[in-house]
């Protein structure tokens, strides 16, 4: 699957309190969470009219802090098609894999600028900066995680393996 979208750039150590502040955690409704996506990193981002289908690009340690799955849920529900970062914090990484939010670890993430058009091929790991005519290779997922991603998420994988057992 190929994803193409406009890039929004964020910095290093974007934490889950910035992605979805705790004051909005009195609900687990994805639509409601989406409205406040990235609120304390960029106020109003989740209510922007131009974010559907776009790509978040960030630096090191994206999604550090709490384990709240509300963070990737908010990003996904806001219509963000993919998050690319130089690295991800561990719990955010597993949450994204588990819920089927496309994420890409890319060493060259910092070469992207706000408004660039990026194209990500999730199968091959090829990442292109259409605006700058550059191309990179993302870090591939380990084989085990690829199975979860291919199933569509961890619970899809669980349900399938439960069915194959019975």
């Amino acid at each position, binding site marked *: 699957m190929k994803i193409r979208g406009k890039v929004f750039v964020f910095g290093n150590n974007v934490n889950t309190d*910035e992605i979805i502040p705790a004051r909005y955690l*009195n609900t687990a409704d994805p639509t409601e969470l989406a409205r406040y996506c990235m609120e304390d990193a960029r106020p109003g981002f989740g209510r922007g009219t131009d974010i559907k289908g776009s790509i978040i690009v960030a630096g090191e340690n994206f999604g550090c802090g709490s*384990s709240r799955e509300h963070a990737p849920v908010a990003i996904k529900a806001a219509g963000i098609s993919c998050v690319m970062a130089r690295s991800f914090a561990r719990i955010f990484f597993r949450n994204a894999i*588990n819920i089927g939010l496309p994420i890409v670890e890319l060493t060259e993430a910092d070469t992207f600028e706000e408004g660039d058009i990026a194209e990500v091929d999730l199968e091959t790991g090829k990442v292109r900066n259409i605006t700058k005519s550059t191309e990179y290779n993302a870090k591939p997922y380990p084989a085990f995680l690829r199975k979860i991603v291919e199933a569509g998420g961890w619970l899809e994988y669980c349900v399938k*393996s439960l069915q194959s057992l019975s």
Partner: protein
Amino acid sequence: MTLAQKILARKAGKSRVEPGEFLLLDVDVALANDITAPLAIQKFKEYGGEKVHDPDRIVLVPDHFVPNKDIESAMQVKLLREFAEEQGIKHFYEVGRMGIEHVLLPEEGLVKSGDLVVGADSHTCTYGALGAFATGVGSTDIAGVYLTGRVWLRVPESIKVQLVGSFKDFVTAKDVILKLISILGVDGANYRALEFFGPALREISMDGRFTISNMAIEAGGKAGLFPVDEVTMAYEKERNIEVETLSVDEDTVYWKEVHLDLSQLEPQVAYPFLPSNTKDVTEAEREGIKVDQVVIGSCTNGRIEDLRLAAQVLKGRKVAPHVRCIVIPGSQNVVKRALKEGLVDIFLESECVFSTPTCGPCLGGHMGVLAEGEVAVSTTNRNFVGRMGHPKSKVFLASPAVAAASAVRGYIADPRRL
């Protein structure tokens, strides 16, 4: 093998597991709270769940926004309560019997050495202090445990932290972990387990170990593990839990090693907006940082020893007129002990407020949310932008001793110079 490898190999029924290996493992305890359980329950039902795999392995602790702060929070807790009832989950802790999850679970003997614990809360790594492999995961992982009893895990590489020397007065376990986070950086242990060794372990009580393991995640750590020694065994014995010792082989190779001499350590203060941003309190004191609020409590520092230390500093003194000092015991049991030991009197005489157990202000939930421009000194674990309230407020992290001294002075203060 490292402590992480040893516990995970035992869980996997293998003689050896290697870092980087992916495992599907049976979980001993699956924990969730009033924020993360609703999402897990919703997913469990969405994926066809009717009866949970094993109700006795599930723990539900409403602690973040309780006593319920608003109607939405009340609805979330109601969902947990009804799910517990419907599924026959006996480890559901209601207000009046609850505690902050990571204070409560060890106290109740619900987690023990050698266990595999997953929790939809990043500070689940706290139980590494007992020699349990405990790690924070997401709500979907918890829903997966409800459905199948299992979780996927990658065996982490480990960082060895060698602790030597003796604490100076008013230097605590909190200062050890803050210093370590500043050395490693907030992602220095990302995907790795921290493992603590060395002669100084003898000096670090269980309460102190919980504080250290609790903040492993602030360096990105997947777990913060202590070997099982006499200190652990004594703690477990009080709960009628028999455990085996857990240690590593002499020739174990670590991904990285860090050496920390406690006798050289000063009380630490972590400046906004990262826990790694630390300075010695002597330096922080010189900067004359005015404080509006002090919070003493949380899953990091809400245990009885923390309250004793705060009371020791506050005794016979008053909180500065412009400061609100909020003391939050970590559990109902801590409340009882604090009352019995006369600590509550000391807090009230000092003009602190003494609350019911809750995560409350730590994550800007309730019971002490900061206004624009306000400054807090807090014994909690995170000082990110907006963590305790307004995005333009600031949180400085410190030990109960530094927090209490700062409450008295009204400025960030060294407890040794009050």
